[in-house]
């Protein structure tokens, strides 16, 4: 059941990536590049940075709006992987008790600030990566990586993983279902059977890999995968690339939050 429903969810991401919006129509390469710039900028902040990260939410916000990505869906996806980030920062508040911020009577230690910083960075980077997939499509990202000089073996590996993920999950869920229908409380659901199941799945996968290789060989495969996919790089792509990269770098170099704050308080005073 679990496997089946997460497969369905993956199908949804795939469907979103086939939408037709201005963002979806951009060259995949510029989206990959901007995402990279974004992630590097977010990650490169110091460990106690919180306010500097805030302006970066503009990038996911604008893309979600323009590319028509369902916010709730994206949020759930981020939540699913959040335990990793939660665990990583878990001990920060205990290890780093030095008070660095005083908000009136409330004193906040460096540990808590860095914990919040980790969570913000996690949300921003994972969100950006998911948005990239949702507005580009996994396969197009792979092609873009390949065009930009990523090792072919690596790209082909990714493509195959994505292609056979669906076949594998279907096979696994059929096996799990077959077991569930013939097991009764206390019998048949233990680790031992699970081990057999996984082992069996591995053997089947090896078999299939052999058959796929055979199918490739009989169509002239010689170690290199050729893909015919013209990519056009237009003015709009260029504008997207330089517009966002410029903004992201500016947000990294200048304290936008502080400037805005000064502007507002200065205006008020």
């Amino acid at each position, binding site marked *: 059941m679990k496997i089946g429903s997460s497969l369905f969810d993956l199908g949804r991401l795939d469907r979103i990536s086939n939408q037709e919006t201005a963002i979806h129509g951009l060259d995949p390469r510029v989206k990959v590049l901007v995402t990279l710039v974004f992630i590097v900028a977010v990650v490169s902040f110091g460990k106690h940075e919180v306010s500097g990260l805030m302006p970066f939410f503009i990038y996911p916000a604008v893309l979600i709006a323009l590319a028509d990505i369902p916010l709730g869906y994206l949020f759930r996806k981020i939540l699913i992987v959040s335990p990793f980030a939660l665990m990583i920062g878990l001990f920060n508040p205990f290890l780093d008790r030095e008070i660095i911020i005083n908000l009136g009577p409330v004193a906040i230690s460096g540990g808590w600030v860095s914990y919040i910083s980790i969570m913000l960075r996690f949300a921003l980077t994972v969100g950006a990566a998911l948005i990239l997939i949702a507005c580009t499509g996994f396969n197009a990202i792979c092609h873009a990586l390949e065009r930009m000089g990523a090792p072919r073996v690596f790209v082909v590996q990714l493509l195959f993983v994505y292609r056979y993920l669906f076949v594998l999950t279907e096979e696994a869920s059929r096996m799990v279902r077959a077991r569930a229908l013939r097991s009764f409380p206390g019998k048949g659901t233990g680790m031992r059977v699970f081990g057999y199941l996984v082992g069996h799945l591995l053997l089947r996968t090896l078999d299939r890999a052999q058959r*796929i290789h055979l199918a490739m060989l009989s169509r002239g495969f010689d170690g290199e995968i050729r893909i*015919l996919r013209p990519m056009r790089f237009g003015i709009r792509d260029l504008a997207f690339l330089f517009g966002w990269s410029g903004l992201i770098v500016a947000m990294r170099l200048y304290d936008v939050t502080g400037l805005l704050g000064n502007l507002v308080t200065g205006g008020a005073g």
Partner: protein
Amino acid sequence: MTHHIVEVKEVEYSYPDTTPALNDISFRIVHGESVAIVGANGAGKSTLLLHLNGYLAPAKGEIRIGDFPLTKETLHSVRRTVGMVFQDPDDQLFMPTVFDDVAFGPLNLGLPTEEVSRRVEEALSTVGALHLKGRPPYKLSRGEKKAVAIATVLSMSPDILVMDEPTSDLDPRARRKLIDLLKGFEHTKIIATHDLDMVLDLCERTIVISEGRVTADGPTNLIFQDEGLLARSRLEKPLRMQGCPVCGPTQSSSGVKATT
């Protein structure tokens, strides 16, 4: 023009675990023929097919495709000549989209871009799947997958089509469409199958294999009437050649049924 002959001479093969699979197999298939290879499960049909495009090499004997013997040197031209369609289309469709998959063979042949696109469109429209061009293979139905799998081979314009169970797992309508499609091809066809009714429609000649040997080779009509031979090879007459359970063995019972 070369003659698209497939000649198998006294071929023997055993699997690495020494299970004998093929034993002294010989036949000759000439240009434009449509031949069925039938036999029980494990009779050696698939093993035989794997020899026809050089994936397995015979332990003894010789295979000739066209005018060449099948050797390491001729392997590439043989694989271009012999288009092989596998039983499970999920094994055959490994590229991200239908288009990429059908273009895979032609691109490997080193054809220029426009030629590749032209061939892909042509192959896809032949099997009636041009509208699936941009779709990923895992979103297709079984029938669509089978059709696209055939297109992936057609795009290399092979002279000989080798197919393993083309009609398995298809609903009756998709099966009929596939049979009609294959009927229209002028290629030399070699089809391994259990679907003897399809054989009746498509193949004028049948080779029966049992326990790694050719037990019969001749006109389909004659072979399917030889009940002793079929039984010995663990086969049955095609359903269409058996009695109808509704009209029954006698004409009168159906008449009675019609009046009540």
